[in-house]
Each structure stands twice: as structure tokens, then as C-alpha cells.
């Protein structure tokens, strides 16, 4: 900004890089990421870095699935949904009922979890968020309502299922080995499901009419309505997607770890971090942010004790909020 005509001539390389980063944030982020990877490989060896990255991809795709729903809801409804993490927990427990209590295949459990969580989203939209929007509720009002909702879901789960740890009926011992790397079979399936779903979402958002409408609403709801888009229908579909993905992410998380009522809150902050990392309201950013965060958290275990893992997520969240609140891919104007 202070760069006058004289300054432009004497521009140093650092400033030129800064200028470039301002214009091309995605490329600049890739350059920084590449530099970090090279530094890590140099310090810790290729095998460790690749192995942890692979593990990170599994949690990362779970974060990404959670984050894309949260960010769509935020972008379109301007609702910071603190209950989103508990949507994941809700989905996981739904799958548990089908998979363990009824002894049916997990695939069916996933389907039921996605359906029920989507239904939960739609019911809450109809019964709670829609009416509150009609009353022009403020930011804090909606945040506190979503916290109340989070408590109801979390402790509702605890009421019915108790606090004990539960596991889904999955094979967690088989591993796949390739290129000298090891990956749990379940984790490989999680990565596969995650990436296919995320790719599908990306294509849907970019090319389908519904996806375009969603992005239009996210840009400007009033303008989208003026342009003749049936906004209330798109909003319902947004909840269907957010709910279904949250349910799926919850089951995948439950399949790789364990189920407990608090799991939703534990997932909420990394998901927020993924959303913020990708630029809040930006669905593509949330996908990338989730995967990136999963990998970064795993890498962090090379330097700090694994007990600090979740703290790393918060540190990333705070750092991004402080340094680039518009997200690593976002441009300043989107704020």
C-alpha cells in the first residue's frame, strides 16, 4: 500500500514474494507447504514423513467431511453451528445401533447414520433455525442456541448409551503394506470413502445446478432469492448434505477409534480449524483444510508427545485466525 513509484523500482525479492502471495494465495500456500515438506523430509527422513502423512490422510478425510458441512451451513445461513461435532457423534451411535445392537453389516449402518443425521439436520432447520432466522436472531443468540443443542445431543447420547467406550464391528487388525509403508485396512477404507465422497462433493458443487445454487446462496442469499432461486429448498438440501456428511464422518471416525458421548466435542474444534484453514464458508477450502490439518497433526507427533495432538489442532486454528483469518486459500476481500 505504501509502495509508491519509487519503491517499486527498489522492490526487494521478499516484498515481491509478498506481492505474489497476495495475488495468488493458493499457489503461495502450496509453495510454503512444499518447503515445509522438504524441510521435514530432510530432518526426519522420507519414510517417517510419508508414513505419518498416510495416517494423517485418514483423520484428515474425516475432518474434511465434517468441515464441508459446517462451512456450507455457515456460508449459507451465517450460523456457527457448535452442535456440528455432536452431529458426527449422533451418526456414529446410529451406526452402532445398526451394526452392533442389531448385528447388521456396517455398510447398512453407514446408510442409516447418513439418513438419520440428515433427517436431524432437516428437522432442526424446520423446527429451530428457520423460525429463528425469520425472527432475525443475532449472532450470539444463534451461537448459544447451538451450544444448547450440542449439550442436548451429547447428553442425550449419554442418557441412552452411557459413558462407556464402544467399538463398531470392524476389523482393526489387518494392515496393508506397500512401498514400505503400513496402513490399517480400516484406515485405507476410510481414506477411500473419504476421497470418493469429497471428490463427488467437489464435482457436485462446481458443476451441478444445486451446487451452483448453494454457492450462489453462500455468496449472497438475498441476491440469490431475487434471481429466482428457491432458497428455502436449497437451504434444506444444504442441511441434508451437512447432516449426511457429518453422519458419514462420525461413522468413519468411530470405525477407526472408539465411540463415546464426548467424541463430538473433541472433533468440533479440529473441524472448526479445518473450516478456518480453508476460509470460512468456502467448501473447497474446507476439503483441503481438513486433509491438510489431519496430516499436519500427525506430523506434529514427530516433535511433541502424542498427548498434545489435539492441542496442535488448536494452535493451528489460533495461528490461522491470527495470521490469515480469511484462510490460507482465501483472498482478503472475502472477509
Amino acid at each position: 500500500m505504501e509502495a509508491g513509484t519509487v519503491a517499486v523500482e527498489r522492490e526487494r525479492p521478499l516484498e515481491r514474494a509478498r506481492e505474489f502471495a497476495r495475488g495468488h494465495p493458493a499457489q503461495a500456500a502450496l509453495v510454503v507447504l512444499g518447503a515445509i515438506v522438504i524441510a521435514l523430509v530432510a530432518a526426519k527422513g522420507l519414510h517417517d514423513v510419508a508414513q505419518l502423512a498416510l495416517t494423517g490422510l485418514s483423520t484428515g478425510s474425516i475432518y474434511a467431511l465434517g468441515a464441508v458441512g459446517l462451512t456450507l451451513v455457515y456460508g449459507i445461513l451465517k450460523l456457527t453451528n457448535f452442535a456440528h461435532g455432536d452431529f458426527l457423534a449422533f451418526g456414529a451411535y446410529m451406526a452402532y445401533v445398526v451394526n452392533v445392537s442389531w448385528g447388521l453389516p456396517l455398510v447398512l449402518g453407514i446408510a442409516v447414520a447418513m439418513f438419520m443425521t440428515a433427517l436431524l439436520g432437516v428437522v432442526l432447520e424446520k423446527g429451530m433455525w428457520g423460525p429463528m432466522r425469520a425472527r432475525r436472531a443475532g449472532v450470539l443468540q444463534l451461537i448459544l442456541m447451538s451450544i444448547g443443542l450440542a449439550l442436548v445431543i451429547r447428553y442425550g447420547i449419554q442418557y441412552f448409551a452411557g459413558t462407556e467406550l464402544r467399538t463398531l464391528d470392524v476389523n482393526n487388525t489387518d494392515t496393508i503394506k506397500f512401498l514400505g509403508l503400513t496402513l490399517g485396512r480400516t484406515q485405507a477404507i476410510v481414506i477411500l470413502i473419504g476421497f470418493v465422497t469429497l471428490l463427488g462433493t467437489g464435482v457436485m458443487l462446481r458443476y451441478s445446478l444445486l451446487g451452483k445454487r448453494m454457492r450462489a446462496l453462500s455468496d449472497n442469499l438475498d441476491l440469490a432469492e431475487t434471481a429466482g432461486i428457491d432458497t428455502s429448498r436449497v437451504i434444506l438440501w444444504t442441511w441434508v448434505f451437512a447432516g449426511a456428511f457429518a453422519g458419514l464422518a462420525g461413522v468413519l471416525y468411530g470405525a477407526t477409534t472408539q465411540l463415546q458421548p464426548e467424541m463430538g466435542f473433541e472433533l468440533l474444534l479440529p473441524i472448526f480449524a479445518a473450516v478456518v484453514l480453508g476460509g470460512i464458508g468456502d467448501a473447497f477450502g474446507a476439503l483441503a483444510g481438513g486433509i491438510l490439518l489431519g496430516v499436519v497433526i500427525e506430523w506434529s507427533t514427530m516433535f511433541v508427545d502424542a498427548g498434545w495432538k489435539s492441542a496442535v489442532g488448536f494452535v493451528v486454528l489460533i495461528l490461522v485466525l491470527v495470521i490469515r483469518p480469511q484462510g490460507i486459500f482465501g483472498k482478503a476481500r472475502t472477509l
Partner: protein
Amino acid sequence: MTDVLPLAVSFEALTSMGFWLGVGVIAGAYTIFTLGLQLNVGFTGIYNFGQAGFMAVGAYSMAIFVTDTGINFWLALPLSMLITIAFGLIVGLPSLRLRADYFAIATIAASEAIRLTALNARDLTGGAQGIFGFGDSWESLQDTIEGWLMDLGWSDPDTLAPLFIVVWIVAIGLTFLLSRVQGTPWGRVLRAVREDEDAARALGKNAYSYKLQSLAISAALAAIAGFFLAINLAFVIPDEFGPTFTFVGYSMLVLGGLASYWGVAIGAIIFETLLEGLRFIDLPISEVKIAALRFIILGLILIGLMAFRPQGILGKREEMVLGD
């Protein structure tokens, strides 16, 4: 999770003075805690969701000073408050430049980072077992106050009576002080910042600096609440300082009403009485279910209040900071 008052359930307890004094102590600590939220949310318009983290910093600093360095308890209190204020500034300096909802997320993340540090930095904080053995100085004061109570004719004062008295003297004193401060030019600027930050800036007021001061004072209040909580429990553990504590504070805040300092105490008393009174409803269900039920009710109260009476009991409609 955070069980507010670990007491056995019995009918006698309903009429037991010790039980209600215990409820009163917690309500008093919550009042002080929530006064900070009132200053931030009700009067400055910043949504601080990290209050439990600040409380943890206060309580842990005090415990570490007394047990590790052997500093006198009464000196440790102001020192811990200063440390908590410093934490408030560290959290606020970068994050107060953010939009309201980002700030909420940043503060809740900061508070969780503090709790995880308490859990993982075992050498300093004792990990999940926490720290105990910092209450000697308090106990001697407690004996003195018990002596005064006996002089006044209370033959056998309850052990919790001194703490109850001190906590409420401090809570009422702080409420009074903050209400007075609100009428000063400084307090009026805070409200101007809440109403319209740009307008306040146009008048030459450094809105950012006022927000930072508000957050720092709120952190100091959280530290005081943390001292009382620590004294009451006789130990500090990470679980006591989870984000649920902040959410309960917000419930009391909106129940009592935004932009009303006296409403805070009312909200805290009603809320604690309700929550603890629930123990006496004889339900044929397990402990876990009853604990879950308490939080379900807490959630429903929050949702119901926000939907039907967002200004709370004593809140003023014209000072509604909720609707933008």
C-alpha cells in the same frame, strides 16, 4: 463430566444447611465468573468463550505458587491475577481484531489449549491428578471467621459458612463496583463500542484498546472465581475447567439478563438451585443418566431462553446486544 457438587443424595440433604451452603458457594463463584462475561458480552459486545481457560490459569498459578515456590497464599492471589490478566492480553491482542464469531471460536480454542496444557504438562500441573495442598492459609482464616461467628452466637457454625460469607462479600462487592464503573466515562465508552464500534472510533476512541481492557478485567474476575473454586474443592484438576463451565456461565448470564450486573447473581442463584435441586427428584435411573439429564435440561434452558426470552429476567430490551 464436571460434577459441580459431589455430595451423596438423600432427603435429609434437602434441608441440610451444609448442602445449601455448598450450593451457595458455587453460585457465588459462578457469579464472579459470570460478572466477567457480563462485562464482555453485555457491556462491550465481545463474545468471550474462553472464560473457563482464564479461570484455570488463575487457579493453577495460585496452586503452583503456593505448593512449588512456597510463596505466601495471600501474595500468590494478586500474582496469579496478574498472570491471568497477562494471559487475557495474550489471547486478546491478536484475536480481538477478528469478527465476533471468529473471536468466539478463537477463545474457546485458547481455553481448550490451556486445559490440555494442564493435562499434559505434568511436571508443572500434576497432569490429571492435579495439585492439592495449597489451602493452609485459607484454613487459618476459616478458623478465625468461625471464631467470630461463635462470638456472634452461632454455637456450631458449618465448615462451609466462612467460605460462603467471603465468596458472597466478594461477589456483591464486585457487582457493586462494576455497576458503579459502568456509569463512568470509561463505562460509557464500552457501551458505545458495543453499540457501534465505527461510531466510537469516529469520536476518537480506541475501540480495540477498550475491548482489550474489558477482556483483561474479565480474565481477572475469572481468576478470582478460580481461587474460590480451588479453595472449595481443595484441589485443582483439568476436568474442572472444561468449556462446559463457560457454557453454564453463559446460561446464568442470559437467564439473569444481558447488560445487568445484578442479574448475574440472580441468574447464578436460580440456576444453581435448579441444577442442584434436581438431585432431590427421586428418579429410578442410574447416576450417569441423572448427570446426563442435568445437562440436557441445561441445554434446553439455553435453547428456550434464546428462543423466547433472549433478554433474560432482568435484561433490558433496549440494550439487547443479541440482535444485530
